[in-house]
């Protein structure tokens, strides 16, 4: 009889151990783009696959919502917190509260500025500077360092627009044959890319060789304007962009866009790998950049069937 009770107790304890899944709170920025939705889907699907309980909070584009969500995660006693910060600053108080509660925090997608490095465990995301650099270096290889560039910037002041612009310009500056004729903002929108490209086509006529867009949406809009003006992208104009959404890779395969640098939103698996390590008390590297690839005519067609976003 007593052995039966012991057995039941042991089973119950083992059951409790198995049944106690990891609980993770994720404070997302919002649902402002298809890229973001793909990112959210990756985080949710991977959590389900691994049996992790994901508490998801949509910040709706506002930091105060995100901070409130993180406070609620702390109150619920989650095992780890993941934040995709909307802005860089203002995170110290809530991160300190998480630290006091002994809950590790992982920052994704965009970096933050804090005075105390121990406030979060690590960062996972894309290196926007590296993306701009890769695009510029590809351009140098392709053109031999000669050409006139029109740049379509993202939203002024946003981290991806700033970094993609800065790193690109740094590489271009080393090649005197490459000049940036004009740089205007299409606000990361397809309609913006088209409108600005139409205007630049009137201003510069056919006197340019390259269009560098800070994201695929603007590049796809610009393609329409270029084609409507009677130019042939790929032949008369080299178009390069960043993000590598499926539609852009299709355009690369069709020869309309010459190159697109990936900015991969599917980092759910990587985030949960790190969560598992951090919760287990292991040390992890502080900055974990995604390995972003570059797609041009050599490899676009091959990746197209497996592209998820």
């Amino acid at each position: 009889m007593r052995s039966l009770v012991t057995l039941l107790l042991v089973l119950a304890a083992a059951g409790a151990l198995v049944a106690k899944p990891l609980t993770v709170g994720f404070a997302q920025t919002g649902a402002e783009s298809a890229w973001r939705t793909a990112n959210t889907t990756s985080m949710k699907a991977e959590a389900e696959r691994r049996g992790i309980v994901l508490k998801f909070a949509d910040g709706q584009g506002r930091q105060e919502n995100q901070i409130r969500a993180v406070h609620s995660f702390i109150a619920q006693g989650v095992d780890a917190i993941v934040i995709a910060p909307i802005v860089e600053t203002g995170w110290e108080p809530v991160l300190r509260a998480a630290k006091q509660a002994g809950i590790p925090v992982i920052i994704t997608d965009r970096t933050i500025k804090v005075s105390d490095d121990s406030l979060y465990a690590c960062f996972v995301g894309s290196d926007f500077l590296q993306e701009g650099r890769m695009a510029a270096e590809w351009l140098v290889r392709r053109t031999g360092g000669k050409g006139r560039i029109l740049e379509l910037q993202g939203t002024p002041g946003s981290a991806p627009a700033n970094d993609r612009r800065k790193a690109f310009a740094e590489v271009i500056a080393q090649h005197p044959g490459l000049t940036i004729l004009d740089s205007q903002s299409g606000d990361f929108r397809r309609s913006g890319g088209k409108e600005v490209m139409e205007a630049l086509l009137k201003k510069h006529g056919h006197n340019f060789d390259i269009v560098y867009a800070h994201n695929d949406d603007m590049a796809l809009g610009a393609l329409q304007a270029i084609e409507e003006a009677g130019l042939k992208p790929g032949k008369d104009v080299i178009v390069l962009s960043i993000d590598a959404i499926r539609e852009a890779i299709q355009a690369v395969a069709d020869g309309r866009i010459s190159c697109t640098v990936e900015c991969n939103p599917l980092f759910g698996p990587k985030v949960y790998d790190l969560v598992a390590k951090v919760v287990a008390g292991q040390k992890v590297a502080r900055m974990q950049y995604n390995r972003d690839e570059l797609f041009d005519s050599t490899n676009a067609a091959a990746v197209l069937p497996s592209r998820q976003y």
Partner: protein
Amino acid sequence: MSRKFRELLRSPVAWPLAGLLLLVLVNVLINPAFLRVTLLDGHLFGVPVDILNEGARPLVLALGMTLVIATGGIDLSVGSVMAMAGAVAAVLLAGGHSLAAALAGAVAVGLAGGLLNGLLVARAGIQPIVATLVLMVAGRGIAQLVTGGDVTLIRHAGFAFIGNGYLAGLPFAAVLAVVLYAGAHLLLRRTAAGLFLESVGDNPVASRFAGLPVAGVTLLAYLGAGACASLAGIMAAANIQAADPYRMGENAELDAIFAVVVGGTALTGGRFLLAGSFVGALFLQTLAQTMYQLGVPPAVAPVPKALLILAVCLLQSDRTRGWLGGLFRRSPA
């Protein structure tokens, strides 16, 4: 002739029109090719054509906004209605439905949005800014639900024509906008309808005692704004051959309000100028083009825009005009 000219000078449309002409003049001085229009593939090609083509959507939005502002209201939801209408049209076309069905679906979405706004304002008595804020926030979410969170691509030549096509060399969207303004002018100024709108905006209580169906007139104004917004959404989706539920029509409501105000329609209601809204929308689009042509850095571009809008609004204010007039009178001729 000179009396007509003096009348024109005194009309509130004179100032935005002068602003527009001045802006064009500045552009021509800096870049003589600004007004050059050439023929390319059987249609006109040049900066003025771009201004008309890209300006078609703000023009149509400003038309609807004028109706609502005339009643003393405001419609913040037009940008979101654009996104919803574009999303519905794209999804219907992607589902293999006919062009007519897609257009009807999109316009129905706009009318439904207008009906909701109108009922909240006219029947429930909610402040227009709050009532239409509801749909401004919710509409974008609905648009995302409709497309499943994706940017939905449109592959339909007939639909694309609405945003990219040319009719007798002119951009079809611009022709459509001009026809709408002409139709609205006939409807509002050749019948008593315009007077009803102004009366409701000026004094709803007196209008009701005079026997006007105040709630009905208000509701019709919001329905008109919704229909215009859905048409703008159709044009936007057709222009880029895609429906982007996240970004389409973002901040479009603010530009529409700007255009109406720059055009001389008072936000207090009771007076409206369709021609003013037309000029105002073209003014804003020309200003955007000017920034591109001058190569003004994007981070700085909003500043001249704000200053110019302020200048036009100051010129319209009776007080500053009286003050300026006084300056001219005192100086010895």
